[in-house]
């Protein structure tokens, strides 16, 4: 494992192709982040427009996922990358798939938000605040660790995923209690539980991205350890 900045390839096309693949992953990530923010804005500002944006823009992200796969395959067939180049390509493809799932969760959140918007606002919505904060942070940090090839940041994400799971469970339990007290708003509470669940999934995907980053940078496989 080498942390030194690597020299460019003798074959400059190779470097260009790897950079392009990396650029596509980062583009996809920032679009996804925006979709996620739109969905959450739609949720809190009770504005369906934001939600609709989030849902509509998902198509672009799907196309980017396909593009990343194509670029990765092209790099592999043209340059037969080995060592860190190979790990980078494999990781990029896997990260692309994980980002796409994050974007799907953004769509799910947007859909649930639209349903919540049909009913009067409930104060319990703010129960979700810490879950949203942590999951968004995790996604941002996962992408940052990829952009900066920062393996230690990525390793640390796995620990945060555990606290996110715990938060989700707490929020869900609380919402179930409310459902028993206030059965008239049962569908709204149910939607909130689903949203919390979506955010928890985003945390899982972020952790997966972090694992791929660690593999790309350190050639270590940290998946399914200690289970």
């Amino acid at each position, binding site marked *: *494992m*080498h942390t*030194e900045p*690597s*020299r*460019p*390839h*003798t*074959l400059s096309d*190779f470097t260009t192709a790897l950079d392009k693949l990396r650029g596509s992953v980062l583009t996809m990530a920032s679009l996804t982040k925006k979709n996620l923010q739109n969905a959450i804005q739609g949720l809190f500002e009770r504005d369906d427009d934001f939600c609709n944006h989030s849902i509509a823009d998902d198509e672009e992200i799907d196309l980017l996922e396909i593009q990343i796969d194509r670029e990765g395959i092209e790099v592999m067939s043209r*340059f*037969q*990358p*080995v*060592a*860190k*180049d*190979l*790990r980078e390509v494999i990781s990029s493809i896997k990260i692309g798939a994980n980002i796409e799932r994050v974007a799907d969760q953004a769509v799910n959140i947007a859909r649930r938000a639209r349903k919540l918007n049909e009913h009067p606002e409930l104060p319990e919505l703010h129960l979700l605040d810490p879950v949203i904060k942590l999951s968004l942070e995790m996604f941002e940090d996962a992408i940052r660790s990829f952009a900066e090839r920062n393996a230690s940041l990525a390793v640390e994400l796995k620990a945060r995923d555990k606290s996110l799971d715990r938060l989700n469970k707490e929020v869900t339990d609380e919402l179930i209690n409310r459902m028993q007290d206030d059965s008239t708003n049962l569908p709204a509470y149910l939607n909130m539980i689903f949203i919390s669940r979506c955010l928890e999934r985003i945390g899982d995907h972020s952790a997966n991205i972090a694992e791929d980053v660690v593999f790309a940078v350190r*050639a270590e496989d940290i998946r399914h350890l200690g289970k």
Partner: protein
Amino acid sequence: MSTEEHPIQIPNSTARPLELTDDFSPGETNFIKVDNFKFFYGKKEALHGINLEIPSRRVISFIGPSGCGKSTLLRNFNRMNELIPGVRHEGDITIHGTSIFDPSVEVIALRRRIGMVFQKSNPFPMSIYENIVYPLRIAGQGDRSVHDETVERCLCSAALWDEVKDRLHDSALGLSGGQMQRLCIARAIASSPEILLMDEPCSALDPIATAKVEELIIELKKDFTIVIVTHNMQQASRVSELTAFFYLGNLVEFDETRKIFTNPSKLQTEEYITGRFG
């Protein structure tokens, strides 16, 4: 595997000719042992103290940019470098515990125990049959039945028998490039060596012929210790279990091929195999 350590030197006092078959144990870990080996072309030092242990019945790749010393080391295993005037060496190479430079070791006998395949296929301008029989003839073996048996065995081992069995007495120079190289492999194993040295054996072959030779190398691993010099990274990762990376006359890294090509531990190795220099 660390190349810095010097495990206990097997004493050379009981020098004996290099006859390995009787007490040869497969899977020996330090079958070929290179011990602080330096090699000079005139004043130029081409190898700077190489330490390397090669296990038996494995395929070992030597990789590195041109002029890194990988071929030089390979050609020392059967002392082919001695044909060049003005060369000398320091240090030692032992095979199965016997120094190949020991005065009691005849270089002719050594080369019979160590077959060599060259970059450019070089069958003799004789028939296919005579090419394979040549190592026997020069060793004084004149028995026709032994000849016939050896020709069939070696051509089968080299996966060439079915292609040439009907024209054994035709000139070897009428074969295709890939067939010629497989014939050279057959010739190299005719004297029943323990070790096969291959100096870029596929660099002049098309992909299909290359694949056949690689297939053959993997097959031959059962019976031979194979050291292959290659400039083709994919070839090294396809055929070999161990890979040694040489640079500027030094052994930079020696490890499992899988490790070298996914996660090498030296920056120079990484930069070379990923195409960043060389």
